[in-house]
């Protein structure tokens, strides 16, 4: 501050002169300063606004592309699902309809038998009409005195009673036969019932598949029309799948880490690491890492050749025979690697025992070290456990292909959406910055006016104007009447 003093011995006079100079120069430079601030605000604010707009449009474009990709993926999935359902329905029809002629024949046969049996059961001997009444009438006749007549009547009575008994016996026989025929019909009824149940099952299954297909078709139509609800559903499903597959892949990564550490140490016994290291990893560790990665790769090929995943379209397009060859080769490789891991795990356990024995021997406990080695040889449980773990882990790692495919498929959408949100946020931030810059320059102009308030007040008194001095570069027409009192207009869009 002292360097600004004109007369260092007289700071008051120096400051006064300095103040006057500032007032005069400031008043003289008011117009260009206001104009400069206005231009600066417009330039910076405009640039920020443009950048914000560009980011917003980029975000919209990204969103549009994401939407297209999502709908396309959803459409492809819906088509594949429909195709699967149609195939299933066709298989159902083929299976059920193939059996239907035999079923129909069996049903016809059963119905015919039932019909015959019914007819057979209907053939009953007619009951002698009026016989009981005739017998009763004869029996009820008064005993006449004529013995001959009496004898004839008795004979008639006896004959009538005998006939009645015979008719009754025949009737009972016929009824018994009818009951037997009806009883014999029971298995036929069961057959008919079973056949009808089969028909009902087939029809219900077909109806269920049809209703499922209707649902899928409805969803497919919504996706094809690009409805927002369909997009939201697909996005939610995609996010869920992404989270789940990311979790599974993370679990598999931990498994791979454990697997790596299981075999890294014994690999140092097999691989000579005298050649140095790569990226801070010794050659033996890299060899272990390669084994783990090869297991994952073999697992991916197994899944691909089985048609469970579709990471490599070329593999999917190969003939079945070639795919089978790839499957067998990958499976054999996986088995081999699992065996290698199991043996390495055993070696690791042996090395641990040797280390323990060495530690004891170095500590001067030679006999204890020998006992330790003996104990390790006797107790094989940890060795077996490690070997089993070493054998199983590669197979579990091989399953990573499925969640990996899901992660890749859904990751594009999730990352794209996240990026879109980021761009939109940045656009909003830039617009806010643009506003701040524009209004900040306006504030600076006001601050400038406050600094040169003395000449401005003198100017006002000279002009006799009660209102404050307007900004020399303010636009003539103000959009907002309330801003008329503002001496400086912030640059507008």
């Amino acid at each position, binding site marked *: 501050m002292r360097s600004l003093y004109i007369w260092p011995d007289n700071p008051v006079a120096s400051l006064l002169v300095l103040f006057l100079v500032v007032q005069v120069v400031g008043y003289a430079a008011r117009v260009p300063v206001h104009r400069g601030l206005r231009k600066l605000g417009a330039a910076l604010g405009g640039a920020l606004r443009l950048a914000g707009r560009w980011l917003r449009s980029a975000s919209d474009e990204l969103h549009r592309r994401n939407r297209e990709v999502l709908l396309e993926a959803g459409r492809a999935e819906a088509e594949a699902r429909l195709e699967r359902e149609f195939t299933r329905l066709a298989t159902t029809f083929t299976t059920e309809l193939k059996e239907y002629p035999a079923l129909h024949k069996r049903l016809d046969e059963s119905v015919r038998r039932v019909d015959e049996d019914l007819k057979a059961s209907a053939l009953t001997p007619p009951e002698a009409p009026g016989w009981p009444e005739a017998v009763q009438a004869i029996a009820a006749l008064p005993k006449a005195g004529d013995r001959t007549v009496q004898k004839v009547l008795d004979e008639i009575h006896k004959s009538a009673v005998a006939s009645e008994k015979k008719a009754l016996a025949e009737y009972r026989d016929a009824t018994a036969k009818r009951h037997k025929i009806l009883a014999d019909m029971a298995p036929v009824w069961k057959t008919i019932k079973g056949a009808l149940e089969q028909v009902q099952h087939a029809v219900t299954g077909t109806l269920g598949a049809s209703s499922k297909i209707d649902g899928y078709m409805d969803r497919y139509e919504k996706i094809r029309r690009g409805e927002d609800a369909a997009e939201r559903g697909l996005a939610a499903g995609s996010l869920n799948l992404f989270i789940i597959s990311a979790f599974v892949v993370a679990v598999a990564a931990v498994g791979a880490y454990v697997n790596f550490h299981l075999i890294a140490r014994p690999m*140092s*016994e097999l691989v*000579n690491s005298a050649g140095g290291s790569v990226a801070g990893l*010794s050659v033996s560790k890299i060899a272990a890492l390669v084994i783990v990665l090869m297991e994952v*790769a073999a697992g991916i090929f197994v899944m691909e050749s089985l048609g469970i995943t579709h*990471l490599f379209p070329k593999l999917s397009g190969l003939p079945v025979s070639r795919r089978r060859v790839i499957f067998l080769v990958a499976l054999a490789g996986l088995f081999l690697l699992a065996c290698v891991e199991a043996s390495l795990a055993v070696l690791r356990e042996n090395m641990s025992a*040797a280390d323990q024995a060495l530690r004891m021997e170095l500590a*001067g406990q030679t006999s204890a070290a020998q006992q330790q080695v003996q104990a390790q040889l006797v107790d094989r449980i940890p060795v077996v456990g490690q070997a089993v773990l070493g054998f199983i882990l590669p197979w579990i790692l091989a399953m990573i292909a499925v969640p*990996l495919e899901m992660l*890749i498929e859904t990751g594009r959408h999730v990352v794209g959406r996240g990026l879109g949100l980021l761009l939109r946020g940045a656009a909003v931030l830039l617009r806010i910055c643009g506003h701040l810059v524009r209004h900040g320059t306006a504030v600076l102009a006001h601050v400038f006016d406050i600094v040169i308030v003395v000449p401005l007040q003198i100017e006002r008194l000279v002009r006799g104007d009660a209102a404050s001095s307007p900004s020399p570069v303010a636009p003539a027409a103000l959009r907002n009447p309330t801003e008329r009192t503002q001496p400086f207009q912030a640059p507008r869009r």
Partner: protein
Amino acid sequence: MTAHKLAAAAALLLAASACTDGRSQTRAVAVLVDVSGTYADRIPDVARIVRAGVLPGIRPGDTFLVVRIGEQSYADDALVKRVTLDERPSRANAQKLDLARELDRFAATQKRARYTDISGALLFASEHLKKTGAGHRAIVIFSDMREELPKGAKRTLEKDELAGTDVLAMNVKRLAADVNDPAAYRARLADWGKRLTDAGAASWKVVLDPEELAGTFTSEP
């Protein structure tokens, strides 16, 4: 996509191999053993502590050396043993057993020295450790930490002489004068700490418990 990822990982590994120090993960440990008259009675203990506390923690690929602190410790004959362990653990274990036997022989046959050239041993060990190119270097001193240089010997620890090297003083013997005046003992150790830190030592530590020493070398660098 997976193929691309694998290719990228392979490219990264190859790129890393081109610009990585091949020995950066290995360690180098120097054990400096005082054979002067005031400390000679502790040498059997030193052998025992090194066997039980240092050797088990040395890993395949690491370098281990034993340097005698005597009259002229900067001389070549101060080096008792220098071994770089094989990368194969079984071979490294055999080398450790050989080292242990060598230490026992050293403890049994060592003659007493008239002087205690600690600085010379530090300079000697520092040179050897630097040549190993190991990523982690450590010096373990078994001494009473009272330096007595022979006439004409000049020892100056340069500013970066021990750069990146951890220095530990183990089993520091309390002399008769120290027992009478513990402040002198503490001042001596503090003075060494300052000298070593000035020489760029990454750390300076006085270890009293052999178990602690074992823990230091068992843990990863």
